[in-house]
């Protein structure tokens, strides 16, 4: 199961309960449970397992579309791919209310705007990622809560 948004949960809770698992399978299950627990991307209505939360990738391109919607906002960037062509980067964001708290408005970006975005990229190399921050054409930078999007910690 999953959720959305910021990358890693801040799991500080006691894990003693995992020891209560029984049988020979218990140890494996305990590790699996704990691992799944810490890998579960924070918010979301769906899995964030495809994003690499340990990496930040900066991309500069032209806004193609911007969706200001619940449960997730998103935008697409046309980004030069280095081979003379363009890649399309789909950027997944939190809900508009998350973004409002960070200073976003539904008019913050529009098609044709040149922006630079920082994202946690898709693990398989397909252009696309999870929003971390953006620098607008006027130089203003908006950023998600850095604690929410911090790279995975060791627990």
């Amino acid at each position: 199961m999953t959720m959305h948004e910021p990358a890693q949960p801040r799991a500080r809770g006691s894990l003693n309960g995992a020891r209560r698992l029984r049988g020979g399978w218990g140890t494996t299950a305990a590790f699996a449970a704990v691992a799944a627990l810490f890998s579960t991307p924070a918010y979301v209505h769906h899995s964030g397992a495809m994003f690499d939360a340990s990496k930040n990738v900066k991309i500069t391109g032209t806004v193609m579309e911007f969706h200001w919607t619940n449960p997730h906002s998103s935008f697409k960037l046309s980004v030069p791919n280095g081979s003379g062509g363009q890649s399309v980067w789909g950027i997944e964001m939190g809900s508009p209310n998350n973004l409002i708290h960070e200073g976003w408005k539904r008019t913050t970006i529009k098609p044709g705007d040149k922006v630079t975005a920082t994202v946690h990229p898709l693990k398989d190399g397909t252009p696309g990622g999870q929003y971390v921050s953006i620098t607008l054409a006027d130089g203003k930078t908006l950023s998600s809560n850095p604690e929410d999007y911090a790279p995975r910690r060791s627990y």
Partner: protein
Amino acid sequence: MPRWIQGAITLRVLAAVLLLPAVTWAQQSPGRQARPPGLTAAREAELAQTHPSYYGALAPENLAKPRPKPPFDLTGTWFINLRHSFADFMFGPPYPHFFKAGQEAMKEAEAARKAGKPYRDASGQCWPIGMPMILTRVWPIAIIQMPTAVYMIDSFFDSLRVIYTDGRPHTDPDIAIDTYNGESIGHWTKDALIVDTKYFATDHHYIDMGIPISDKFHIVERITLADNGHTLVDEFTMTDPDMWEGEWKSTKRWIREDHSDIPETECLPNLNQNLPSTEQGHAVAEKENGKTK
């Protein structure tokens, strides 16, 4: 015959002659057929989902029945308490001893995590979350307490759960309809609301990282208020004799959020196409970048 009467008759005949073609055309035109007859009382009762022998929870007659005063009022907007750990949205660990399906789910979830792939990402495909996970989404829940029922509206997917407290029993199993939030029947004690929930839809209905349930899944909750009404405490006892051994217990807490409301939050497949972490969105990203296999 007076001339004014003759004139009136002439006008009516003339009007009838002039309107006849229009009436005939309207009757013959496929798009202008006569309106069908109205619903019969019996058909209306069926479509309005009426109960054959008892009042609905919001019927004035039901609301007005004398009842003991509940020990507290849950009405408010609530948000899952994740202040101690974000992982508190999950119902384990500790976990019960899972049988085969649950054990396999735990292993497969771990394998998917290592591979960087989602596992049983049903909600990412717009399947309903279902109880109990719907209550621990990171979206606010509006709770409206009435004398006859407690309405829980989760902002996420606009999911509705109704806990009937008007004394009705569970629906006869022969006609009960399985749903993702189940059928909840509650009763008040001197200090808690006790809720019994069963009749769950099982398709793509998972707990935590993908533990499946069977049609024997059953939840009993003990709901109380703490911190002078600022914290809602729900003690879950979940059983499913086909999926795990004994009782799976977990206590969750919600914080009263008096400056929040519940936004409409639909899961729309076409919007998922813009989210590269969903199956649809990832497929679109591959197609747009020439990686479609």
